[in-house]
């Protein structure tokens, strides 16, 4: 049951001015096309894009594409985050591990994601495995480096505390290092998620013929700009939704951490 009070509160959170700007821009775009000021053969008006999206949804192609891309993004991101946090914890807490692997990481990290696509294609063909390879490898670094650096920055006193209470290595990681490094890990995980969506779409455009990225390319080749733009818009919304979901999940998952972060920053 939604009370009028909470409705009003929800309304107050909406950025009316910002929303208005978007609406005005869309209106101008629509007007410019209808009045014939903008004359590109393949630039549809917003109303045509909306109709296109409706058409795609009715055919069931849109939800299938969204599901595929979403699955690839979430799977790839989960793998990247798990690997990144694990390696980051080890690298952050062991100087020996850093000495052996930091140069390898510095070589691999700046490699452009797109360079992996032909390699992955040769290895795995036009498949989801290719897509996941392209997502995981670059999305790994923000989490790994973020975790490593936050673990290295943990105040040495916390390790003393773990030792004086006789905590073993693994409990120390779980109870001290992981929560103390949580803010840095979250930053890395957010960057990684944004990156994962970009990479998924990219991989679908050139590697794995499925999902939203493939939708954009195939409609472009079919000379249906309205449908192509509809896919682009959906990709945009997916990005916004994923980010909002992650931020919401992180605050919901651990209100204590959120409170602690707020308390520290104030």
């Amino acid at each position, binding site marked *: 049951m939604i009370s009028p009070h909470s409705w009003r509160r929800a309304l107050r959170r909406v950025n009316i001015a910002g929303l208005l700007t978007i609406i005005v821009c869309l209106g101008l775009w629509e007007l410019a096309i209808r009045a014939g000021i903008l004359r590109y053969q393949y630039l549809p008006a917003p109303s045509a894009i909306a109709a296109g999206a409706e058409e795609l949804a009715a055919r069931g192609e849109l939800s299938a594409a969204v599901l595929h891309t979403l699955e690839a993004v979430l799977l790839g991101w989960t793998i990247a985050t798990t690997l990144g946090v694990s390696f980051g914890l080890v690298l952050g807490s062991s100087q020996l591990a850093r000495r052996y692997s930091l140069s390898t990481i510095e070589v691999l990290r700046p490699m452009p994601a797109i360079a992996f696509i032909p390699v992955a294609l040769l290895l795995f063909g036009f498949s989801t495995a290719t897509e996941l390879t392209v997502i995981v490898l670059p999305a790994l670094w923000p989490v790994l480096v973020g975790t490593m650096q936050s673990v290295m920055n943990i105040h040495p006193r916390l390790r*003393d505390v773990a030792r004086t209470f006789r905590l073993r290595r693994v409990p120390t990681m779980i109870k001290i290092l992981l929560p103390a490094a949580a803010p840095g890990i979250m930053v890395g995980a957010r960057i990684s998620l944004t990156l994962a969506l970009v990479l998924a779409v990219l991989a679908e455009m050139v590697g794995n013929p499925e999902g939203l990225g493939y939708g954009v390319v195939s409609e472009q080749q079919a000379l249906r700009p309205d449908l192509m733009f509809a896919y682009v818009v959906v990709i945009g919304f997916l990005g916004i939704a994923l980010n909002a979901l992650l931020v919401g999940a992180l605050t919901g998952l651990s209100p204590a951490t959120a409170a602690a972060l707020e308390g520290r920053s104030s």
Partner: protein
Amino acid sequence: MSLDLPHQGGTRKILTDISFEVHRGEFVTIVGPSGTGKTTLVRVLGGLTPCTSGSVRFNGREVDAPPEGVVIVFQDYAHALLQWRTVVRNVAFGIEGRVTACELRDRVSSALRLVGLEGYDDDFPWQLSGGMQQRVQIARALAVRPAVLLMDEPFAALDAMTKASLQDELLRVKHETDCSIVFITHDIEEAVYLGDRVAVINGSPGTIRQTFDITLGKPRDQIMTRQTAEFLKFRYAVHQAIGGVAS
């Protein structure tokens, strides 16, 4: 026992010729000016730093890692507390997974009662004052029911009033739990007021040359005890031992 630490290519002697015993249930304060290795001494006693020659023994066994039953209370409570945990969960830190849920609850609440911190169970450390945070850290140490409490200038960062009330809390805790306490401080009056015995650490490298048996009566009182002739006599003696440096 002595200790050398690596320093600019070579080693530097931090502590030398330190030898003393702490008996069960005794309150020993170690007082000395800064730079004499007081904090290092606590770390060696607590098994965080190994000594380079000699040995530290606890119940006859050599200390090479933090032994069970010996807990350190650090000076910088803000860094020593887990900022993402509530008061209750901070206090539970040392015993969780080692005792039953029921005993955990009992121990945590009795530790909090011992330090006079009730009704803040679900607060986070950063929501509490400095004195209260230090109480949380002491409660966390008490929850493991330690045989020895090693305290590294625990009240040095607190204001005079908070300091006085925490000193009395600590004496009461000591009386009720009967654990041994080794208490490091640079405050001569605090050392005399709290200790059954005061050891003076001095010099660089630091060494203990003199100890005093403090025969003041108990319970001690912030006003009455501090103005007795005996207290002043001990204060003077410790002062002289340190080398007449103003406290």
